[in-house]
């Protein structure tokens, strides 16, 4: 299921933090498929904001570092201010996602009339996920399936498509790295129609150096537990 430029107006939201060495290439590749690219510079110390602007992206700059979840929320809100945008795609800045996957995910959302399409590394057997990473992700998926009841195969994939009506109802409160689970919780709570689409994630030494530590999963667990208990109280 590979498609070219999606027909519906779509905004690609890319949170970035000190990504000067890769951001130009990522945006250049993305512009082949998407007209609107919103980069949220989360208080970078390098000149990735200028590079992104040069490459043709809209840049929203956080005055200081607020966290990836906060950057996503900012990007989504900016996208929703653009009146004609129908779909918002969240995309990682470090070059680990394939923009063709993003394009075919939007097509899938259109064709199947879905509010949310989630990227999954595990729908198709791929050997590209490093073993230690796979163990943490598998555990995260089991946790997500049992707590949200969502039938998903990947829990922390940064590549996802949100239709405008879904994006409008998502308000990310967890500013750090727990936003992926937070989004899944909203999907479950609001009973959005959703689907999964296979994606390839390229683990370069750059993306792995920028990636999270495995033990941060426990921090995410803590965030979620507190969030849930509070919702119940």
């Amino acid at each position, binding site marked *: 299921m590979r498609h070219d430029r999606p027909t519906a107006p779509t905004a690609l939201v890319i949170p970035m933090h000190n990504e000067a060495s890769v951001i130009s290439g990522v945006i250049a590749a993305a512009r082949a498929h998407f007209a609107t690219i919103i980069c*949220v510079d989360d208080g970078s110390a390098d000149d990735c904001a200028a590079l992104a602007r040069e490459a043709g992206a*809209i*840049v*929203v*700059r*956080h*005055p*200081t570092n*607020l*966290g990836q979840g*906060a950057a996503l*929320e*900012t990007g989504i*809100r*900016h996208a929703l*201010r653009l009146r004609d945008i129908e779909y918002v795609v969240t995309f990682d800045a470090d070059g680990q996602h394939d923009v063709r996957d993003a394009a075919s995910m939007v097509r899938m959302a259109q064709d199947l009339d879905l509010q949310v399409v989630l990227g999954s590394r595990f729908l198709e057997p791929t050997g590209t996920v490093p073993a230690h990473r796979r163990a943490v992700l598998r555990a995260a998926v089991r946790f997500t399936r049992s707590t949200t009841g969502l039938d998903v195969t990947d829990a922390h994939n940064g590549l996802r498509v949100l239709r405008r009506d879904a994006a409008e109802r998502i*308000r990310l*409160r967890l*500013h750090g790295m727990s936003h992926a689970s937070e989004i899944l919780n909203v999907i479950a709570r609001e009973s959005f129609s959703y689907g999964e689409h296979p994606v390839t994630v390229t683990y370069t030494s750059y993306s792995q150096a920028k990636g999270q530590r495995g033990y941060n999963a426990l921090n995410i667990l803590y965030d979620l537990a*507190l969030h849930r*208990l*509070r919702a119940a*109280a």
Partner: protein
Amino acid sequence: MIIKLILLVCLAGAALVLIRGKRSALSLLLRRSLTLVVIVVGGVAVLFPGAVTEVAQAVGVGRGTDLVLYLLCVTFLFVTIALYLRLNEMHDRYVELARQLALHEADPQAHDTHLDSRDHERR
């Protein structure tokens, strides 16, 4: 022993405050009254040191010093949780403020600068 009950109730209360995560008018009143009580009781304890030991023994603690230490631990826990909640709340506002600034700078034409209404519901 009464002290066990008192301390367990206090710890459960601390957990509840952490989980509820919001400060209400009632909690403000409680904080203010407790501060007053601590000042008055502290004054009494300074003037009549023997009274602390008597109270300690009445609730099942050997020495007055131990009772003071236990109460200090519980108080410290409550203060820490209250500060943690307040910091979180301020961080949420700070993120929203910074975001509005960022959005406004990116697109000064859009006059959508009012804060998200859901931010106010939580207070």
